């Protein structure tokens, strides 16, 4: 080798060494940057982000702690995992007094669910016992996993559909005074974690979609075999059946699942109804655990077709636990937010924010912008909702997380990671799963409150605004409990306290709400879409039943307006197909809008 080439190689080696060190340092810095969130700083005004949250459940008269079920003793070694859901919250004005109430589920055998009636003075009282919605958790009929409000008979009162690991149950609301068991045509037993109302055939009657998680033939209290676990961490197709129940009127429901072509056996944890192609017929987005998401488009009320792969949302298998809709860029496009699992050093799936590339009719392609917009890393994420928390005109995200908070200095992650990569012959048998022995699994996690700057850039301000609990969060719902034009936050925690975060918004920020009532459409107006045009912005929202995880927001749609004092127009697309425009609606009030051309 010549002296020149030796010198050249030495110089090159020096440069490459510098580049290697610089690369390693860059990786470290980028990793730290991804974790950034704004801390609480007492020296700064607590309204610097436009709002502040203060937990006030007990002060409001709500003192509820969720309790989990106890299944077959052969699952004792992993009981916290298999009994890890059931804390749910659903908001509705059940007695039509103009104040938002909410229903929470409990899951221990013999425990009582609660219906918190809003007294109008900032406090709540539990009336579940008196109205007949409390004592619904029995070994014989199963334990509650969630509930969803919807007026199935169009009598003006919101009825309640309760889903369980057990017998699903519909309760008819008798003028806000009591609830009676109602309905026929329901399956005998479904191990369900998700359900929603939708009028899939647009006949003006709300239908039901119920999604099983565990296989239907599994009685978790009396196992015939321990081979009940998902057959894979990514490709599990041995979960529960799905049910599309058509409302035939007078409380009669008919199973149309096979007829419309839904054969999914995935492990569904969340579902929301959404019309992604603008056809007027609502489809379904399913967030599935142990596998890919499913997106069923509704072909004229006759058939459902899974287009998840085609649209891009169903290609990468993850651990889906949430389905929420939000207009992230204020451009009229509804995005879908799905939560997954992210644990440093173990599993980094990242949450998904599926943004349609086009608006309007036709099947859109979706792109995942969660990482780009900074809403991907949410820990072991569960429920999340879109809502304008600071009334600045942009939809923010409130996310709860945390799986199992047990021993504070212990972690089950290593054992979990070992079994999760195993072949289906290994992972499918609960007997092969390592015992938890009181260890935590992604426990004690801090929540995320991502505020949107209006251009789709999100910043986590949870610690700064007061969302500082570290419970194992499951369901989160948003509601204007005090009728002040501000969204409060109610959180249902697994094996933990129900929390109500009272929201204080900076003065000078305006808002508008729309409470819709269908006439030709279903009376709850579920499926209606409202586009608000103001100050050069347009924001779309949809009236939904289920949204998030085991949660339901208030029915009325809330829009923050920032400093704007006027609105150009609100364009309502009713489920019946009718389009209605309200010009210059007044701000800072809730508009009750009845669908024109009544019955």
């Amino acid at each position, binding site marked *: 080798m010549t002296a020149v*080439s030796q010198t*050249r*190689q030495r110089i*090159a*080696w020096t440069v*490459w*060494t510098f*580049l*290697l060190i610089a*690369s*390693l340092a860059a*990786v*470290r810095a*980028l*990793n730290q940057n*991804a*974790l950034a969130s704004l801390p609480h700083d007492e020296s700064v005004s607590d309204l610097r982000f436009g709002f502040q949250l203060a937990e006030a459940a007990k002060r409001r008269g709500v003192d509820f702690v969720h309790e989990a079920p106890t299944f077959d003793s052969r699952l004792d070694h992993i009981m916290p995992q298999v009994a890890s859901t059931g804390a749910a919250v659903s908001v509705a004005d059940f007695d039509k007094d103009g104040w938002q109430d909410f229903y929470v589920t409990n899951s221990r055998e013999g425990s009582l669910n609660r219906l918190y009636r809003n007294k109008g003075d900032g406090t709540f009282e539990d009336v579940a016992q008196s109205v007949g919605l409390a004592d619904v958790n029995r070994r014989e009929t199963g334990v509650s996993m969630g509930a969803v409000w919807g007026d199935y008979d169009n009598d003006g009162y919101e009825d309640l559909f309760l889903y369980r690991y057990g017998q699903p149950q519909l309760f008819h609301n008798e003028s806000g005074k009591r609830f009676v068991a109602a309905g026929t045509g329901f399956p005998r037993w479904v191990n369900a974690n998700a359900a929603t109302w939708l009028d899939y055939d647009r006949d003006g009657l709300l239908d039901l979609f119920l999604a099983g998680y565990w296989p239907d033939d599994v009685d978790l209290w009396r196992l015939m075999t321990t081979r009940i676990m998902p*057959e*894979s*961490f*990514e*490709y*599990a*197709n041995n979960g529960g059946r799905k049910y599309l129940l058509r409302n035939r009127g007078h409380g009669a429901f008919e199973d149309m699942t096979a007829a419309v072509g839904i054969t999914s056996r995935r492990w569904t944890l969340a579902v929301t109804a959404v019309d992604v192609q603008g056809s007027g017929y609502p489809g379904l987005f399913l967030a599935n655990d142990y596998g*890919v998401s499913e997106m069923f488009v509704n072909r004229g009320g006759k058939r459902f077709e899974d287009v998840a792969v085609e649209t891009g949302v169903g*290609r*990468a*298998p993850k651990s889906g636990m949430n389905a929420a809709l939000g207009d992230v860029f204020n451009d009229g496009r509804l995005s879908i937010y799905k939560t997954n699992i*992210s644990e*440093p*050093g*173990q*599993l*980094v*799936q*990242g949450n998904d924010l599926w943004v349609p590339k086009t608006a309007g009719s036709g099947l859109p392609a979706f792109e995942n912008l*969660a*990482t780009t917009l900074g809403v*991907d*890393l949410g820990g072991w994420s569960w429920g999340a909702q879109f809502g304008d928390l600071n009334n600045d005109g942009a939809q923010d995200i409130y996310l709860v997380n945390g799986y199992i908070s047990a021993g504070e200095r212990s*972690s089950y*992650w*290593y*054992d979990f*990671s*070992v*079994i*999760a*990569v*195993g*072949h*289906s*012959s*290994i*992972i499918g048998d609960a*007997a*092969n*799963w*390592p*015992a938890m022995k009181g260890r935590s699994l992604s426990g004690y996690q801090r929540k995320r409150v991502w505020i949107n700057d209006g251009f789709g850039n999100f910043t986590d301000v949870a610690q700064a605004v007061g969302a500082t609990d570290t419970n194992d969060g499951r369901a989160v719902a948003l509601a204007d409990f005090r009728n002040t034009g501000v969204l409060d936050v109610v959180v249902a925690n697994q094996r933990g306290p129900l929390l109500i975060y009272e929201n204080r918004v900076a003065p000078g920020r305006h808002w508008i709400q729309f409470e819709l009532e269908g006439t030709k459409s279903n009376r709850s107006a579920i499926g209606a879409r409202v586009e608000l045009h103001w100050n050069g912005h347009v924001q779309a929202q949809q009236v939904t039943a289920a949204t998030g995880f085991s949660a339901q927001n208030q029915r009325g749609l809330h829009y923050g307006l920032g400093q704007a004092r006027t609105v150009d127009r609100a364009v309502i697309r009713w489920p019946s197909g009718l389009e209605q425009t309200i010009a210059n609606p007044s701000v800072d009030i809730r508009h009750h809008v009845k669908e024109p051309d009544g019955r």
Partner: protein
Amino acid sequence: MAGDANALSSAQQVPAPRGRLLTIDNRYLPPLLITSILVGANLSFGILEGWERTALSIVVAIGAEMVLGRITYGKWPHPASAYISGISAGILIRSPFVWPYFFTSVISILSKYVLRLKGRHIWNPTNFGVSAIVLLAPATVTVLSIQWGNAVAPMVVIWLLGALIVWRVGRAHISATYVAAFLVFSFVRSALTGVPWLATVAPITGPMYQLFIFFMITDPKTTVRSKKWQCVVVVMVAFVEMLMRLAEVVYAPFYALFVVGSIAMVIDITRESRSSRQPS
């Protein structure tokens, strides 16, 4: 894994009785087969986050190799080795971000040119790159942990293909020894921890381990010379991995190879250097 293609070219210099099987040039066999496996698996099971990220890893690895090799040695290096490094990184790492795919490839290739002793690089490039990225960026990067679907058949096909490749290039003894050692040590772990044996052995049924066993620990450029000591080293890798697993280190195989493999290489290179200086 990165040196496999280059080493295969050296294998060609000694006529191989197995050369009649699969008459493709040995240098291209591993890249061809690993690409086929990747394409087939992604089309069937969607194992990748997206084609773009894997493509980025490959392009960056090849680009880095071309630049570094040209500048350092004044000639264009063969791209097969860098291709293996890039595709390995693209398959093995998982992240919602794009930058890890870029940096894993860059770090892998840079390690070949920086961390050298007596003209030989010490670490398998992919092992170095993956180990570095998961150690430094735990919140944003993890390692492939999914399966080739639910059926047994794909797993069997991968095992057979992998076994064929390593047999073809005369490295089957390394893979076989490691597998045997892993199984034995998994019994030991199960006995010590009380965890069901099937759970302790579960990881070896996944694609990550198959890539590790067939392409990473067999890299001729970063394994010691004699067959006997190659087997001894992989048993040590499996043993250190066992210790790390008892300490609940998730990326135990990568870190074990990182530690044991490099020590073995330093010893081997030093001994080779001394013996070459001794008068004959």
